């Protein structure tokens, strides 16, 4: 039967290509004719995608086929007749493949014969596809971090530090250089916003401009890094990554009790420059390593930050538990490892070398992790509160009974009464929303078929992701003591290929506008390749060697010439064509201020910023219409003290179901999933917010009063001061002329509003 088919082969190939011999020698033929058939017909049982690998045979690479499975090699290069694969396809031997299906078309089988006759050429190991399909262990980000030598730079311009050497070397390959330096005024505004999220004061600018000492820059950076505002800025970046919010989301959107303690913990950790490995360890396993230490317990709020679906009626406990564990597992991949592991929950990751079993083994570290609210109040406080709430509970119960018997307006009245009673319930006691291990309720972790909690496959114990460890490494027992400590040890191991790379890349992103790996939360095989791999590794290894401390890292970045360069480049016309994304950093990336920076900056410029730090989050007044959309509108209770409304944005209450309109308009993240990088959109509602919004108008008023108060009624002085406060520099002659002309017959408040609306305020050059 196979004779006629074989004779057809040359014809088919000739039709497909004029040069089949050449074609067959590389992987083209394999890619075009063989691999698609394998993928379609065989991979479901014979590849890493298989739920269960059949016959120990993989058909997803040439090597695997030559090696074969339980029955021996699947192919013998050059000898189709001796190849088991061909026999199985022809239904000639013991095997008939694909199973329980008719034979594949004769021309397809002929393709396979031809391919094997030609030596079964597959993609070479160095080809990109080989990296993905063949050995994913070869993916760059899974390789150990190697400390590269700092490249020599030919350019006469002496690099300021190692960062510059790496950046300059790449630019030189193209015959390019960095842009000329930014002005000193631009630099101090840039570095002040980057490190603290606030504008520099005119005094700070003046002081720096007058300081011509060689260490002037360094002194500024040291001052900023020592400022508590540093933690408020960089804490926010971390809160974005761990999708911090103070409520649970879904329709109930219940408050996580005192979640602000975690926010304060993060800010404080950044300010103290807590070693990053320690910071991660506390969040992952604080309760295991130091249960008596409040700080460590607060850190474990980390595991509570995912959205939680609470059920009315009869909750499906196992299902809910599964959802909670899913959130807790996925965020570890995204936040710490920079890997999207969530796909492997339902099936072997289609895109990454992460098997479903890997996923559940990672989850097994969290099998006993449970909520643990630690009430901080004294015994007496607790009793008073309990008595009070019992009294209200009784009243509420009585009211509810009465409600059952009434209808119409009478019932409506009772409903209002009920709501006000519920509002009067005593405030919850001071609490740490921690986690701990409840071994008696440890969840047996199984591989779940299709991710469905009822479809339990084999049970698994904790083990790190397979692609990152030796294949021989065994699984730990499911009841491992202090499992999360083990997980933290693995993640924070100095030799871990991802943790340090992922973090230094996050820091890079926030200083330079884009990560060296653009996909900051995805270092997997589908993620972006690094623009400067050696630099990334140099930074990562330096970071670990310096004891995982962030402040030296910031310092190195912001004191580089790469950071100092202007947003304007003389080579822009050329470079924009060849490198439109500016990945080689031939100029500085101008950025719009983030939502929080705009709000905080306006508060500061207008003199209204309430510098109070830490403590419970503040609810500010928002449209009644938005509050009405909440499942329980009574959940939104604006603070009584209006001064609280003027605190930095990081202290505003982060409610999943009620995003603050001002922040949302300027691209604050949706609080539901990890946000590695903010969008920067430009649209009319932003203009409306800054022109017509209540906040903008209130603050313009305050700004005007401040100007009047500080410099009296001399208009030229007012203009100068306004620009110094808002733009961090003197007004240009044209700006002064326009402003004075305006002030001849227009109000100071409208002038102040205009200044807050200018690009000079809203952008950092």
């Amino acid at each position: 039967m196979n004779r006629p088919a074989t004779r057809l082969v040359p014809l088919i190939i000739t039709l497909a290509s004029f040069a089949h011999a050449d074609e067959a020698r590389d992987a083209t033929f394999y890619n075009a004719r063989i691999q698609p058939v394998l993928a379609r017909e065989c991979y479901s049982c014979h590849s890493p995608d298989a739920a269960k690998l059949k016959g120990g045979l993989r058909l997803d690479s040439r090597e695997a086929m030559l090696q074969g499975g339980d029955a021996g090699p699947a192919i013998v290069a050059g000898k189709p007749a001796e190849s088991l694969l061909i026999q199985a396809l022809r239904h000639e031997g013991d095997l008939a493949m694909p199973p329980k299906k008719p034979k594949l078309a004769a021309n397809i089988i002929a393709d396979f014969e031809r391919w094997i006759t030609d030596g079964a050429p597959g993609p070479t190991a160095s080809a990109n596809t080989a990296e993905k399909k063949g050995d994913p262990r070869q993916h760059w980000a899974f390789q150990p971090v190697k400390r590269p030598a700092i490249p020599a730079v030919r350019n006469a311009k002496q690099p300021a530090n190692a960062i510059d050497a790496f950046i300059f070397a790449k630019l030189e390959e193209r015959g390019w250089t960095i842009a000329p330096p930014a002005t000193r005024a631009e630099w101090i505004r840039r570095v002040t916003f980057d490190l603290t999220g606030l504008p520099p004061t005119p005094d700070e600018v003046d002081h720096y401009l007058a300081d011509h000492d060689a260490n002037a820059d360094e002194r500024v950076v040291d001052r900023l890094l020592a400022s508590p505002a540093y933690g408020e800025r960089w804490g926010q970046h971390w809160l974005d990554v761990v999708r911090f919010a103070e409520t649970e989301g879904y329709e109930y959107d219940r408050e996580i009790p005192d979640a602000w303690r975690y926010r304060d913990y993060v800010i404080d950790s950044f300010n103290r420059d807590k070693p990053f490995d320690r910071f991660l360890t506390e969040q992952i396993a604080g309760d295991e390593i130091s249960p008596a230490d409040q700080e460590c317990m607060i850190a474990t709020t980390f595991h509570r930050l995912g959205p939680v679906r609470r059920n009315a009626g009869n909750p499906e406990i196992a299902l809910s538990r599964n959802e909670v564990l899913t959130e807790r597992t996925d965020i570890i991949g995204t936040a710490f490892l920079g890997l999207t592991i969530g796909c492997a929950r339902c099936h072997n990751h289609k895109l990454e070398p992460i098997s479903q079993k890997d996923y559940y083994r990672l989850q097994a570290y969290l099998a006993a992790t449970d909520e643990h609210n630690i009430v901080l109040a004294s015994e007496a406080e607790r009793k008073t509160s309990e008595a009070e709430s019992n009294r209200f509970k009784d009243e509420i119960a009585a009211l509810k009974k009465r409600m059952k018997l009434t209808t119409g307006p009478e019932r409506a009245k009772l409903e209002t009464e009920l709501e006000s009673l519920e509002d009067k319930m005593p405030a919850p006691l001071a609490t740490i929303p921690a986690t701990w291990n409840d071994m008696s309720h440890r969840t047996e972790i199984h591989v779940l078929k299709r991710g469905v909690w009822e479809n339990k496959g084999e049970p698994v114990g904790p083990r790190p992701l397979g692609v990152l460890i030796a294949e021989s490494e065994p699984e730990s027992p499911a009841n491992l003591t202090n499992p999360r400590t083990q997980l933290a040890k693995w993640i924070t191991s100095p030799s871990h290929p991802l943790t340090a790379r992922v973090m230094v890349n996050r820091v890079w992103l926030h200083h330079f506008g884009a990560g060296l790996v653009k996909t900051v939360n995805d270092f997997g095989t589908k993620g972006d390749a690094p623009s400067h791999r050696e630099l990334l590794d140099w930074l990562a290894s330096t970071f670990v060697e310096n004891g995982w401390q962030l402040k030296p890292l910031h310092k190195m970045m912001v004191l580089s010439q790469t950071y100092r360069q202007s947003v304007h480049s003389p080579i822009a016309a050329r470079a924009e064509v060849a490198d439109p994304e500016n990945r080689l950093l031939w100029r500085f990336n101008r950025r719009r201020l983030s939502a929080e920076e705009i709000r905080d900056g306006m508060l500061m410029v207008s003199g209204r910023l309430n510098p109070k730090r830490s403590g419970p989050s503040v609810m500010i007044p928002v449209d009644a219409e938005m509050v009405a959309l909440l499942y329980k509108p009574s959940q939104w209770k604006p603070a009584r003290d209006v001064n609280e409304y003027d605190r930095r944005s990081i202290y505003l209450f982060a409610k999943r179901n009620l995003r603050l309109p001002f922040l949302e308009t300027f691209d604050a993240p949706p609080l539901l999933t990890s946000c590695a990088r903010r969008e920067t959109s430009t649209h009319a509602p932003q203009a409306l917010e800054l022109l017509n919004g209540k906040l903008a108008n209130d603050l313009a008023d305050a700004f005007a009063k401040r100007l009047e108060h500080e410099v009296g009624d001399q208009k030229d002085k007012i203009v100068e001061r306004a620009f110094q406060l808002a733009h961090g520099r003197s007004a240009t002659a044209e700006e002064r002329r326009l402003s004075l002309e305006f002030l001849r017959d227009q109000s100071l408040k409208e002038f102040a509003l205009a200044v807050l609306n200018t690009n000079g305020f809203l952008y950092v050059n």
Partner: protein
Amino acid sequence: MRDACCGFGGLALASLLQEEAARAGTATPLSSKPAHFQPKAKSVIFLFMAGGPSHLETYDPKPLLNKLHGQKRPNEFGEAKYQFVQRDAKLLGTKRTFKKYGQSGIEVSDLFPHTAECVDDMAILRSCHGDMVVHSAAQYELFTGRVTPGFPSVGSWVIYGLGSESQSLPAYVVMPDPKGALEAGQPMYTNGFLPAIYQPTMFRPGSRPVLNLERTAGVSDADRRKTLDLIRNLNRATLDPGDQEFSARINAYDLAFKMQSEAPDVLDISHEPRETLELYGVGDAVTNDYARRCLLARKLVEKGVRFVCVVSGGGTGNQQWDAHSDIEENHLRKAAETDKPVAGLLKDLKRRGLLDSTLVVWGGEFGRSPEAESGRGRDHHNLGFTMWMAGGGIKGGKVVGATDAIGLRAIESPYHLRDVHTTILNQLGLDQHKLTYPHLGRNERLTFVEGKVIREIV
């Protein structure tokens, strides 16, 4: 004085625009531009059924599926790759019943009794297919023609090609479902590498979809006008020529005060006649939300807005059309929310003479599997599913293409999502090959692979 009562309207606006055009020496990037050829439609309303509505429960009756209920898919239908359902899954019959409607006698299921009344205006595309079976990638493909984020959406392409007919409203509006975000997130709606001015304006839920349209108390319009001029002039004083982001920012202010003057009237549906409100289902708890947004969509296109996307579905999967666990529960609910509003929109457009110039497109990022998932649900399915178009020069009362006898695969006149895009452009008088933008050394266009115009319906 018109200015006194409604802000920067009338003459002030006109002179402002002329002034602007004179200063720039050119029209604004959003000025109305001529089409490549005679257009049939001026505007598009895309009724995006997020999550992927089932073709099997809606517009593509498959009696054989009910006969094969509980059995494995017969081999002759070939293979399909799903996101979750395994190859050994059993076929799931439908509980829906189908009836012939209109003069065309096209069968529509009992999920859409109201929309079915419009079937003679609708062209049902039963042979749609796409490349991706996961939400985010499929949503990107549906909106941008690519399966990865970063490319311009069809709405951005359209306003890039045609500009805006409205000076007082955004050219491209997205009304997301207030229930929450979608898998692909905002990038699916946005302008990608097109200049930032071609971004969508996202509307908010509630009666005030665009925040801060009310002017500030105690500030006269004339004074605020001067403030705006100062902002513009200060920004221009430091503007680099060719700086797109700053230009977009300046433009956002222009649009903002134009919107301020005219938009409130357009956005306020409370003055619509009761009959119209009822036609859409405004006021009925189930339909209210989608009805309001559909009615708003009509008002927007009436005022010259070019592209409006009205999203049904957001937040968790089951709040979308993503019926993994129970197709009955999910689709009965989602259809109840949208059927009357959609029908109301079609009828209202038609009686106002707007349907001829407004292309209405209905569909999700894919359909749903003939196989059961978790017993009563259906998985994602991209090999054959239904979308429909109406108005804007589309021939109604037509069925195009067919899936096989169990609705697995588009087998007769299959049309890819790129063909849907090509047809949308075609109705607007745009040629996919001419609507290009240089990016990374290539002249990019909406359709990655050349699309076909669906000739049967144009």
